[in-house]
């Protein structure tokens, strides 16, 4: 056995030397064909790997990137926020009067933070003005510029990704009627209560009307409308979640007790 291996090993280099010494043969048609098919095969394998990498990038890496950007946005909002981050002493519910309606910021300006306890105790996402892909792809929830601001009678509508780029509304289908959705702005806290969802085709802009899907009706209530794609890994439809404004409290009153821990954590004091 050992002897055989030795002869094979010593035969190899001499064969290679012979090949190198021999004058170069002219390429035959079959050689050219072999070369081309080899290059083509390597290119196809490369394309397959690049496509797989793209899927990994789209479904995983965009979330990592967007989460970092959104955490940063929440942090910078928290730094500018003046007001206690611990709730006021539990007393009889106070009526703080009609909610303050802030003017809409410029495109890509920050409106506030959304807290949805149903989506987990760490769900703190920034709400940004505008629904361009530059806003939605990195900063999370984008406010449709044509709709009202939080607290105003009418429709405060935001869009967010169901998958990729932070997947801010991935769990939108798990909302149960009665779930609280909190929006914190520089002025205070708006508490919305989830009412129902609806699955529509992507061209149904009437869900953004002051009274959703009812053209020409004068709004009397404040509605929060969230839109995202449906089904979860597709975009053939849109899932719409409607919530009604339940209460409002100014920043000076501190956060509602249900989200007090989350607010404190978001503001670096938890």
């Amino acid at each position: 056995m050992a002897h055989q291996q030795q002869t094979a090993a010593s035969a190899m280099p001499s064969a290679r030397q012979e090949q190198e010494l021999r004058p170069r043969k002219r390429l035959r048609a079959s050689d050219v064909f072999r070369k081309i098919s080899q290059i083509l095969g390597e290119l196809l394998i490369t394309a397959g790997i690049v496509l797989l990498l793209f899927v990994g990038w789209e479904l995983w890496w965009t979330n990592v990137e967007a989460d970092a950007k959104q955490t940063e946005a929440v942090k910078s909002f928290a730094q500018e926020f003046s007001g206690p981050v611990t709730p006021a002493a539990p007393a009889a519910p106070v009526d703080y009067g009609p909610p303050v309606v802030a003017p809409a910021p410029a495109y890509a300006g920050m409106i506030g933070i959304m807290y949805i306890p149903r989506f987990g105790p760490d769900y703190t996402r920034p709400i940004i003005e505008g629904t361009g892909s530059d806003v939605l792809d990195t900063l999370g929830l984008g406010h449709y510029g044509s709709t009202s601001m939080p607290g105003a009678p009418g429709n405060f509508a935001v869009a967010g990704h169901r998958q990729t780029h932070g997947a801010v509304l991935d769990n939108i289908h798990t909302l149960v009627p009665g779930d609280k959705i909190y929006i914190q702005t520089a002025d205070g806290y708006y508490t919305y209560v989830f009412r129902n969802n609806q699955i529509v085709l992507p061209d149904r802009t009437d869900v953004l009307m002051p009274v959703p899907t009812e053209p020409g009706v004068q709004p009397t209530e404040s509605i929060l409308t969230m839109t995202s794609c449906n089904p979860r890994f597709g975009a053939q439809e849109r899932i719409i979640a409607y919530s009604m404004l339940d209460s409002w409290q100014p920043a000076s009153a501190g956060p509602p007790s249900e989200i007090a821990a989350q607010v404190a954590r978001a503001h670096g004091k938890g």
Partner: protein
Amino acid sequence: MYAWIFRNLPGPLWVRILTSLVLVGVALVLMVEFLFPWFSQFTTLTDSTIGSVQQP
């Protein structure tokens, strides 16, 4: 093709291995920074807005 590139890299074996790793890394960075963001506009997975108001 890749074998041809590897054979034609300068230097001893370990330098060629390092060079090819760097080349793969550069290709990855270029893909993540430019190719993938450009390509993702052709996928519909990220459409989450309603109708014509997608652009403000």
